[in-house]
């Protein structure tokens, strides 16, 4: 890992912790951004962590760019020794894979796809060496995922698969981005899964849809009354495959204000995880579903 600093115009400093994605890079970025927040540096207005990088927005009339850069570099060395451990939660997200709405959308944009003759799931299965889309779907939901960034648009989570790198799914993005994606589409690009929080443009492959809103500016959804955005970096997700009946039932519950996502408080320690990935994931599942 080699940290690279760059100015993003006169109001941002952009810091790439590593060119490639890894949980080590995510945790280092998290440690530095936490240190920046704790330092309460005058002139810093926004701290935005990303997957393997982060960005600081500041007012150059309050702090000179080179002074802020020097402060960030000094915080980086302190972050090297920080504990790579967080108190977080694991959340079950219901997914209706291969649903009619993303299917209709992906058929409309076939000319922008690598494989115009198939579906996004068929393509993803093939490039990852799975015989069928069903096998690929199992690979997608059988291990937990880690929210390593929230952004793009309102509250959209990027999720990183908690398995060894050799087992991680990778799927190229669309050749040209779509101009439409159904709200709450579960997507895939590079090594990341995502949930489209709102309807709109997108370049990730489309695998399914969740009935569970994750962004609600009106804050009418019962579990979004405290804040309109559901996810934060560090959340852990377990996809739960559901069928049409279950999808309809959850939609009705959300509408009625009676749906509560299944979730549990957990600790996540990167060293423990790296030492025993399957064991750590088993414990996460136990926390979510009971031993």
């Amino acid at each position, binding site marked *: 890992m080699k940290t690279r600093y760059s100015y993003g115009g006169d109001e941002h400093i952009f810091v790439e912790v590593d060119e*490639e994605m890894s949980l080590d890079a995510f945790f280092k970025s998290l440690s530095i951004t936490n240190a920046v927040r704790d330092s309460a540096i005058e002139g810093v207005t926004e701290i935005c962590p990303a997957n393997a990088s982060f960005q600081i927005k500041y007012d150059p009339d309050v702090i000179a760019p080179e002074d802020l850069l020097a402060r960030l570099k000094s915080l980086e060395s302190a972050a090297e020794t920080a504990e790579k451990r967080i108190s977080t939660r694991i959340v079950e997200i219901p997914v209706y894979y291969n649903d009619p709405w993303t299917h209709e959308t992906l058929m409309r944009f076939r000319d922008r796809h690598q494989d115009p003759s198939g579906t996004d799931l068929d393509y993803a299965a093939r490039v990852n060496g799975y015989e069928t889309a069903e096998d690929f779907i199992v690979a997608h939901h059988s291990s937990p995922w880690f929210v390593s960034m929230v952004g793009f648009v309102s*509250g959209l989570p990027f999720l990183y698969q908690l398995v060894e790198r050799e087992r991680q799914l990778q799927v190229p993005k669309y050749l040209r981005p779509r101009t439409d994606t159904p709200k709450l589409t579960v997507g895939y690009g590079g090594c990341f899964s995502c949930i489209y929080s709102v309807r709109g443009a997108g370049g990730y492959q489309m695998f399914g849809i969740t009935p569970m809103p994750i962004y609600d500016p009106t804050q009418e959804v019962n579990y979004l009354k405290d804040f309109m955005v559901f996810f*934060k970096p560090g959340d852990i997700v377990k996809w739960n495959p559901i069928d049409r009946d279950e999808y309809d039932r959850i939609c009705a519950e959300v509408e009625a204000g009676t749906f509560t996502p299944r979730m549990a408080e957990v600790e996540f320690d990167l060293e423990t995880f790296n030492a025993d990935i399957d064991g750590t994931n088993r414990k996460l599942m136990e926390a979510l579903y009971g031993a």
Partner: protein
Amino acid sequence: MALKVLKSGLLTTIQDLGRPGYFHLGIPMGGAMDRMALRSANLLVGNEEDAAALEAVFVGPELEFTADATIAVTGGEIPVRIDGEEKPCWTALAVKAGQKLSFGFLTSGARIYIAVSGGIVTQPYLGSRSTYAIGALGGVDGRAVAAGDELPVGTPKNTVQAGTSVPESLRRKTGTPTELRVLPGLYWHRITEAAQKGFFEDEWMVAPEADRMGYRFKGGRPLEFVEREQPFGAGSDPSNIVDSCYPYGSIQVPGGTEPIVLHRDAVSGGGYFMIGTVISADMDLIGQLQPHMPVKFVPVDMEAALAARADRKAAMGRIRTELAGG
């Protein structure tokens, strides 16, 4: 007091100076594309500079006033009509209850700001009334204004003499071409030296895909990448990176072909490399660019970026002084 919307125009939204503080969740600061024009419009009607006003793009709306008020229209140059009678823009104008405001065709710029004394006082969300349509946040039910809307207006604090105006010399105009100053950086090293040179040599044209999220440009040569093996997680295209944050004003070039400059309703991050950032002093200017207008990107260093920022601040100071004396 209310503003009745008779015709909405093309895309007219309520904007103030925005809602900084939520970009880490993908909610951009939003607010007026041309902040100096919004500040000026508010000063002309006696409002705080950050009061909410209407931002209209290319085509003005038609509005009716339910009470007497002072209004001002700034930004692009446009014929302003009160009950059909032509009035100047960048000027405090008195309107009577029942009068109608309409517009002719823009003669310069792309966006106008319509401020009314007392400001528009719709419900604020996350500290701002700005409309962020992608996230259905702010404005009127998270959307642009529509015919039939009645926009509530606050109680005026100060009075400004009708006829007071911002002198022509203090209004900023686009050029032929408009020069946008850029601090190279971010993933600048990903393109070849020849491509770096070519980007600044070529003349670019504003593409039709130009909105509050970002402005796309066409017409320059495609950028050639320095060869590398793509890092894990980035995606297969040479213009892909592991999804990162995007600065406001950053210039991403998907596929190396058409640069996109992110603006006030920026997506907060994504997987395309960026070659640098338009400096803060020139962001307002982008908001006044129309499709097909020519643009040159001009490289600057940090010292020049900060000097330009100080210049803009001084210019805003001159407008304040001018209006305080008027």
